[in-house]
């Protein structure tokens, strides 16, 4: 199934609003009147407030904590220290990667901002005040701030408490065929090399993380409201951490989360301490992070030092790829990470191109930084991989003297080659890359732009045209390969249709603003003909939804959406039997379309889905179980592979290094689009975050490990003023193995666009001798790169 299709013909009317209709979002009705429910809006009777004391330095022995002055303050109920947590065997917790992480420091501080103690008070202001009255004595140790330092032979061990750990290495991972890759490099005319750092970034959703823990002192029932992208997995981990029986833990991720982007996947010490405090005190305890807490201590992303080498012929044919990586994991390996892929889903590193050999070696190192490795709007490590190959391909084209678009077209995996097995052994499901790139080129007026670029150079202007064509792997995943802390990555949907034909759909995935309440209702609408507005979607409550692994890695539509389609089809099968009974026809003759059950060839003999729903409770065939409901756990046969062709046009100021975006054209193929309006909104957002990382957004540290960027005045996020306008295009090549042909889209633009932006800047200055500028491509870096190239040249 590789032919480009238009969005498949709509099989529902606008009033039903199934797949393909850009219907307005149901969730907006509450959000536009200020009636959303976010974590901080949860208020329980008798609730106490928690504030966390954080370490002021990156590496230090903990000598002593004296909390007596804080404990004596009016309004302070308790001060929780690591020692107290240790008494309850809660000082350490497992991470999603199978590492351990300190909940509160007991032995030594391992990153600036690490959780040292917590105050529980009657008022959040008092809780914050009391932090100042906790006296902590530290013995400062030298900080290790880069992974290169960390793996030196004489480096001090950061994780000296960890059994079996002898150095600062976290993992070593290899993929591909080293021998075949060596042979490809020997046969090559040229070897193109790129060394670059994909900088540490922070997802920084506008709502910070938080929890309201409510442990009933009598029953032991723990109800934990928590900003969670994966409530079911969190419940299981909570049971493991705290030793609470899992059936007595209810995780409620509030109806509305103020963004997630990967930041709300991990379990943070604050969640655990708040729960422990509620358990000890017997009252609900609320903890909401400040922005600084969020920026310095929670889920960083990226931080990969990458070296890529591409073996190419003088004719511009790629023969092989070699990659060496060193990732900075911070003090605890806390990625949400399938255990079978220690460096993450680095398997799209070969990109969208057809060549036989690749070999990837990746090492991870502990440093004195906050635990890193959340994927941040990409699947595991795909954005790093995609950036590397697309930057390499750009440079390779330049070195062999080809246009970078032409170079890509020459090397693309061709439509007839799908399903395509990559040199690292993964199977791309479907695609038509040449059509995508050509369509983007036509739209932007590529040939004319290149001519304009030549003219501009003659006039002393620096115009750059950046191309990127990415393939992403989303929808984790087939449970044979993908897990979180060992829990297999299926997802689920439970559908109940009520007698009057209205339905409740409960899903294991959790929205953070992506519009699940609308999108998932549209899948039901397409399958059963029940209007999308008649379907309520429930999510985020482990007591009221089937087990699922949550929302990240763009897996909601590929996995949760598939589960929804399949469970709806189960109901349709039963509904067909009931319709046959009502119409006194053979089941095989019943057709369902747009909510109407017809006898084939007799359009007059019809009953509606609403008639059938009522009959499911009132007028059933002999012996049939009443009701119209079901559940499905969907384990996808493969990942899905959305892709896109992005073209960015920039102008660089030679004197200042500033660059401005003139055009940004993004063609995305995410398979079938359920709600085109929502898909486009997701793309806008992802492109903005890609632009942010390319141009300004990064978290830096000084040599002592102090985090530079603990607030929005130092951690730069683009405003409306800087953000470029985007021109969106699409092709639709459905996923052949997904029930509705959808692939997932939310992360594609973040994965694909950084290379497009950076390639554009490089393209503008490459003729001056500049071959690389690391992200974020700040004006001073551009200026310095030009200056260095000109001095050298």
């Amino acid at each position, binding site marked *: 199934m590789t032919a480009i299709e238009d969005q498949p013909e709509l099989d529902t009317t606008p009033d039903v609003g199934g797949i393909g209709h850009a219907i307005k979002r149901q969730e907006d009705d509450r959000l536009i009147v200020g009636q959303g429910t976010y974590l901080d809006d949860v208020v329980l009777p008798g609730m106490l407030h928690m504030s966390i004391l954080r370490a002021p330095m990156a590496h230090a022995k903990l000598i002593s904590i004296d909390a007596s002055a804080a404990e004596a*303050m009016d309004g302070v109920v308790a001060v929780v220290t690591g020692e107290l947590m240790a008494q309850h065997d809660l000082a350490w917790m497992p991470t999603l990667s199978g590492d351990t992480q300190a909940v509160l420091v007991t032995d030594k501080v391992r990153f600036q901002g690490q959780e040292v103690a917590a105050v529980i008070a009657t008022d959040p202001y008092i809780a914050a005040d009391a932090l100042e009255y906790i006296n902590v004595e530290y013995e400062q140790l030298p900080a290790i701030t880069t992974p290169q330092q960390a793996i030196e032979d004489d480096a001090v061990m950061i994780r000296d408490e960890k059994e079996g750990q002898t150095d600062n290495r976290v993992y070593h991972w290899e993929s591909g065929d080293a021998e075949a890759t060596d042979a490809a490099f020997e046969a090559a005319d040229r070897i193109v090399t790129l060394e670059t750092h994909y900088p540490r970034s922070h997802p920084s959703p*506008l709502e910070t993380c938080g929890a309201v823990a409510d442990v009933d002192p009598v029953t032991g029932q723990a109800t934990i409201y928590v900003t969670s992208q994966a409530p079911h997995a969190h419940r299981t981990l909570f049971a493991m951490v705290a030793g609470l029986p899992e059936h007595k833990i209810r995780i409620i991720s509030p109806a509305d989360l*103020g963004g997630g982007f990967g930041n709300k996947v991990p379990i943070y010490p604050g969640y655990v301490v708040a729960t422990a405090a509620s358990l000890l005190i017997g009252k609900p305890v609320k903890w909401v992070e400040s922005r600084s807490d969020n920026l310095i201590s929670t889920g960083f992303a990226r931080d990969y030092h990458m070296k890529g080498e591409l073996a190419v012929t003088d004719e511009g044919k790629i023969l092989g790829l070699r990659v060496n990586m060193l990732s900075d994991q911070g003090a605890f390996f806390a990625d949400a990470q399938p255990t079978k892929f220690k460096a993450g889903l680095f398997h799209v590193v070969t990109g969208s191109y057809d060549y036989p050999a690749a070999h990837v070696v990746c090492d991870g190192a502990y440093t004195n930084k906050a635990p890193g490795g959340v994927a941040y709007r990409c699947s595991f490590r795909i954005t790093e991989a995609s950036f590397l190959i697309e930057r390499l391909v750009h440079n390779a084209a330049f070195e062999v003297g080809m246009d970078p678009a032409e170079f890509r077209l020459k090397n693309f995996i061709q439509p007839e080659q799908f399903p395509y097995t990559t040199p690292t052994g993964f199977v791309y499901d479907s695609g038509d890359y040449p059509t995508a790139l050509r369509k983007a080129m036509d739209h932007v007026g590529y040939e004319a732009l290149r001519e304009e670029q030549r003219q501009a150079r003659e006039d002393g202007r620096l115009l750059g045209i950046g191309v990127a064509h990415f393939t992403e792997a989303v929808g984790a995943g087939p449970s044979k390969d993908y897990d979180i802390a060992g829990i297999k990555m299926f997802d689920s949907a439970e559908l109940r249709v009520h007698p009057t034909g209205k339905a409740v759909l409960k899903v294991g995935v959790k929205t953070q603003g992506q519009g699940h309440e609308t999108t998932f209702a549209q899948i039901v609408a397409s399958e059963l003909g029940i209007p999308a507005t008649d379907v309520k979607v429930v999510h985020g409550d482990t007591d009221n939804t089937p087990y699922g692994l949550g929302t990240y890695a763009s897996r909601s539509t590929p996995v949760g959406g598939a589960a929804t389609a399949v469970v709806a089809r189960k109901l349709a099968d039963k509904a067909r039997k009931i319709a046959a009974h009502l119409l006194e026809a053979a089941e095989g003759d019943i057709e369902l379309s747009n909510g109407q059950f017809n006898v084939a060839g007799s359009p007059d003999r019809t009953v509606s889905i609403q008639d059938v729903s009522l009959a499911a409770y009132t007028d059933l065939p002999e012996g049939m179980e009443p009701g119209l409901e079901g559940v499905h756990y969907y384990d996808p046969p493969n990942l899905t592979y959305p892709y896109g062709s992005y073209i960015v046009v920039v102008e660089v100021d030679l004197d200042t290094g500033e660059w401005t975006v003139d055009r940004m054209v993004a063609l995305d193929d995410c398979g079938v689009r359920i709600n085109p309006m929502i898909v486009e909104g997701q793309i806008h957002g992802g492109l*903005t975050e890609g632009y942010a990382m390319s141009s300004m957004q990064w978290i830096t540290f000084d040599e002592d490990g102090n985090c530079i960027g603990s607030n929005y005045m130092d951690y730069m996020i683009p405003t*409306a003023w800087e953000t470029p306008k985007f021109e969106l295009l699409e092709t639709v090549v459905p996923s052949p193995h997904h029930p509705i042909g959808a692939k997932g889209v939310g992360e594609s633009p973040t994965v694909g666009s950084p290379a497009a932006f950076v390639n554009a800047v490089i393209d503008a200055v490459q003729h001056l001798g500049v071959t690389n500028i690391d992200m974020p491509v700040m004006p001073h870096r551009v200026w310095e790169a030009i200056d260095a190239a000109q001095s050298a040249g």
Partner: protein
Amino acid sequence: MTDLTTSTAVTVTMTVNGVEHSSELDPRTLLVDHIRTGLGLTGTHIGCDTTSCGVCTVLLDGKPIKACTMFAVMADGAEIMTVEGLKQNGELHPVQAAFKEKHGLQCGYCTPAMMLVGAALLEENDDPGDDEVRWAISGNLCRCTGYMNIVESIQEAGAQMRAGSNGVEADDMELQDEQTDADRPKEATMQEVAE
């Protein structure tokens, strides 16, 4: 025993969404906390505590201000409008309707503030250009939408207001138009707001 909280409570009176509230407050209470916790109006959010992200924006005497870095006592005697006050007489404000229509929101966390800034802008200029809208909302961060649809939403609301289809009295509309026509430094006004 150290008690930092001992302070003389003060009485603060403000009109919020047309309703006057007198409250006994610790003088250090931030306006945003008073609105959210004291008055229970949770549509106003907290995002950064440093005036940078703008999700706590409310209108104070018609001007957008950031409620996370202002004490409630400083708003004594003021007229405050929060997102809960946008809807009038059961009718959505045009900016609310437009945000839904033009997909101007995703997670919704920045949305109340964006709509209030948009409404304030449209009070001054109901036909703003792209740059005018972008400048007006440049003190408000969004992580989901990429801003394009927010800009469109505010412009769409302006179009609806110009067409008079917002439940606003026709006389009021004319008055707004006259004000808009005045030769005023639009960007400077919004810059003051951003600062």
